[in-house]
């Protein structure tokens, strides 16, 4: 690997997005048959995966990537789908026959932001989407290709539309995405976003929405990097940043493990090390602990504590007791969780199982095939211990 520099949160050159090859290969396999909804913790690297997929698609695939968070109406969204399609199709807008018909021979107007019809009215967004997808499907079929729309920040889009045009329009957009992606075999979408779509859906459901826009999509959770990839990234960054360390391999191993193999945190931690100093594993640990303990840090792991009240309501103290127990003991099976937690709170077995399941769903914990519960991301466990003055047990 060439010399790479830390870039926490920035945009990476596709060649510097490491450790995702296997996942991307699997994603393309899935996309062969169905669309994908990619969901995981924020900053796990979902956007970077899309960037890498777009940079190097397999033979026969065309990719379009768009951050939908900056669109606030269904019309803007439909227009972006049209514009983006036109940029990648052979023949451009000319290849989009049905859309041309919509504009009419008198010439509708392609005004940036929305599409207007000859009579000056804004083109119905659903029709724009329908015709765009038909045109795209027809065009790529001719060249025996398929197209993948990599749509980032879908939850922001839905939230924006709900605020600007009302929840009903947001619901219609969701249903349209589901419907169009089922109707055209040459078209696939891969949806993701900084926040889980289920948060937006929950809000819409409270307003009467009963659709299931994701139910025919494959749910993919990319997760952190594999340990060996995370170590390689840490090593390359230590070298690239010319950070001196007693044993760079050991330092890289420590960094990768301590931050739970999440590339963003690897970049971030190494960006806090100084070239002027000589590091050991111990001193890197001190830097990390200092960062996490600082009340004014920008890692915001506090978020994992704060949101418990909102997510778990009356079960908040039980969730905290479980997280305390697993932070201390690293991993526990159900019986041990029950035994440790019951010293602090009275809880029935079923309630405990339910809250454990929810903690896994919300990416706090993971449940291994051996039946052990552990923190999903090691850095959250570390922060939890620091913030709650817990000592790691044996």
């Amino acid at each position, binding site marked *: 690997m060439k010399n790479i520099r830390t870039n926490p949160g920035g945009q*990476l050159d596709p060649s510097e997005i490491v450790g995702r090859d296997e996942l991307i290969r699997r994603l393309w396999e899935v996309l062969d048959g169905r669309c994908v909804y990619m969901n995981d913790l924020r900053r796990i690297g979902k956007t970077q995966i899309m960037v890498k997929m777009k940079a190097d698609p397999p033979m026969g695939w065309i990719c379009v990537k768009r951050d939908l*968070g*900056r669109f606030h109406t269904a019309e803007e969204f439909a227009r972006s789908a049209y514009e983006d399609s036109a940029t990648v199709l052979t023949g451009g807008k000319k290849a989009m026959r049905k859309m041309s018909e919509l504009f009419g021979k008198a010439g509708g107007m392609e005004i940036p932001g929305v599409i207007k019809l000859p009579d000056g009215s804004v083109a119905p967004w659903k029709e724009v989407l329908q015709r765009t997808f038909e045109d795209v499907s027809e065009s790529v079929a001719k060249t025996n290709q398929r197209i993948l729309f990599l749509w980032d920040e879908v939850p922001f889009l839905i939230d924006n539309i709900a605020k600007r045009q009302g929840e009903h329009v947001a619901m219609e957009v969701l249903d349209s995405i589901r419907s169009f992606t089922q109707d055209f075999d040459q078209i696939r979408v891969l949806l993701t976003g900084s926040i889980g779509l289920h948060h937006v859906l929950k809000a819409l459901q409270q307003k009467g929405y009963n659709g299931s826009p994701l139910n025919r999509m494959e749910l993919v959770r990319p997760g952190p990097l594999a340990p060996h990839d995370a170590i390689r990234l840490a090593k390359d960054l230590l070298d690239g940043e010319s950070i001196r360390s007693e044993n760079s391999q050991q330092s890289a191993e420590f960094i990768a493990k301590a931050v739970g193999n999440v590339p963003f945190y690897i970049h971030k931690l190494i960006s806090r090390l100084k070239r002027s100093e000589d590091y050991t594993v111990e001193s890197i640990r001190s830097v990390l602990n200092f960062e996490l303990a600082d009340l004014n840090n920008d890692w915001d792991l506090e978020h994992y504590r704060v949101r418990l009240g909102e997510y778990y309501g009356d079960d908040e103290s039980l969730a905290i007791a479980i997280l305390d127990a697993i932070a201390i003991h690293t991993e526990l099976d159900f019986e041990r969780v029950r035994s440790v937690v019951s010293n602090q709170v009275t809880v029935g077995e079923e309630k405990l199982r339910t809250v454990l399941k929810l903690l896994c769903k919300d990416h706090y914990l993971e449940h291994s095939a051996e039946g052990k519960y552990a923190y999903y991301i090691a850095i959250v466990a570390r922060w939890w211990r620091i913030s709650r003055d817990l000592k790691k047990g044996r």
Partner: protein
Amino acid sequence: MTVIRLHQFSPQRSNPDDLETILVARAALLDNALEKIRNSSVTKNRYHLLFVGQRGIGKTHLIALINRRVELDKKLRNKVRIAWLNEDETSSRFLHLLIRIYRSLAARYPDEFPIQDVQSVLGLDASEALAKFSNSVVQRAKNHTILLLIENLDAHFAKFSIEEQRNWRGFVQDHPIFTTVATAQGLFDGVKKHDEPFYGFFDTQHLQPLSIEQTSEMLMKIAILQDNEPMQQMLNTPKGQSMLRVIHFLAGGNPRLYVLLSELIADDTLDDVIDTFEAMVDQQLTSYYQERLRWLAPLQQDIVQVLCRFRSAVSVKQIAEELFTTNQSISSQLKELKGFGYVTFTKVGRETWYELAEPLMRLVMQVKETGSHQPLSLLVEFLQAWFDREELERKMGLQERECTSWRYLESALSTYDQFLKQWPELRQPDVPSSKLRTIEELTEIIESRKTTLKEKAEALFSRSLDFMLMRNWHRLVSDCTILLELSSEDDISENVAFSAIFFRQLGWIRLGEYPKAIDDISLISKTKREQTISKSTIEAFLAAMELTDASSCEKAIELLLERIVELGVENELGGALVEYLGRSELFGKKLDKLADWNSIWQRLGASVPQLIVPLRLLDAGTNYLITKRPEVLLGLPLEERKILKEVLNISDESWTNLDG
């Protein structure tokens, strides 16, 4: 002297070459930013750097130098287009921001970014204009990386709704043409909160205040740049260094402050540090702090004013009560103020105590409020004397140990320490310390003609210790006097001589001969050609005095005070009193004795103005050693507490673990 104007509040208006010349402490940060900008010009990496630090810490200076270095680098200049936004303007919509970026590019590269593009979207529907103008910017950028230099990012975010932030982020993600270098006073929710669109987006780097050495280096660079001989000379004088230390101790290392004060530091019409300080307060510091306050939100300003009024650390509850608001709203504002570098806190048990991070801000505001310089002047005077020792150490390095008073103190302490170690087995007055030789044997050696000078001195020294244990004070004084007479001979170890003075002082005090005991202080100074009585000498005398009973001690203190005032070395006594607290472990001081010691000093020293600060420290230190309650120290202002923590060797770590 060359007239070179350094714009303290707008570094971007200074000559960039001058800014480069006076740069200190940020070279690595600057090089790193440049490397990343260079990397973004040849790869698809796009970096978004955020420099965080309080006002005046050097953020604009850094931005100005990034701009300069990119301009000077031919390769980089060809690949990068710079948009440096005016720091005083903010926007409430992403479209406005994008237009400002474009205008900045158009002003610098009019052929590549024709201003007509802006005209073409004016009057359009906002969403239409944004879509159209976004395309324009991307097309006009061609293959260039646009380096966006944007200051006060926190002020922009404060005006941007979440939707506008999503617009911005979406644009940057869809069109990776920007590398950003931004600045902010502190970390703010828009970049640090998990649910915000820009969470984790910026690579944040905190600009640390300058150390005392870096401050001195910067001032020297300014002096050389301005060809300012008096300033260069002043910085090399004890007065200059002493003043710098005091300012740094009270105000921290904000570079703007030192640029601001650089002219006064070199003003030789001001007689001493106190005069200079008073001039600084009157002429510049008040407006400097008021300017900093203006940038805060109204409630934050109120909090700072409350903290200015209190001389001690304050709890959230106290502040909330003062401002008639809730603990919660005060807590969140304090957190921001901490991020901006205005406040610092101490956690004791479950309670958190806040105070101003720069005590000088409080002191200056107090001067403004009361119209009196006296409390500040007394503190400055005390600190100046306090730092004299450090200054000496810094300048002399290891040679400092050659200093007479230091050697005297060390020698007295080590002799006394040895004496204490033997004490348990020798506490019976009739038992001589020299187990191998009786007093008679020692006397024989002393009187023998065959004995060398060195052997005689050693025997006298052993015998004097025996007399001390036997409480035979007359014989102790007599032996020490003979020893001191012999000390002019080269063969006699200096340590033996110093110990003789120490024990003779003890003897004089025990015999009620206080003036003679005090004369021995001067003896050290006179014989070793020191200009004045130093803190270490007084400290050793205090050690001798402390061995006596309370009533003798009181009389000795009375006389000592008289002599100290006569000699004008009140600050040295003050320093010694505080420093001496830190030796309490070595001396095995009993806590009840410590309390007596403190109360005598409080009573007798109250009339000496220069002892106000040290007596406050002695009182708090004594109470702390007796009660071990951190709240005792939290009742002191930060600057005084820092001194006491250093003296009592209380580390920050042990401090935060203390349970109140």
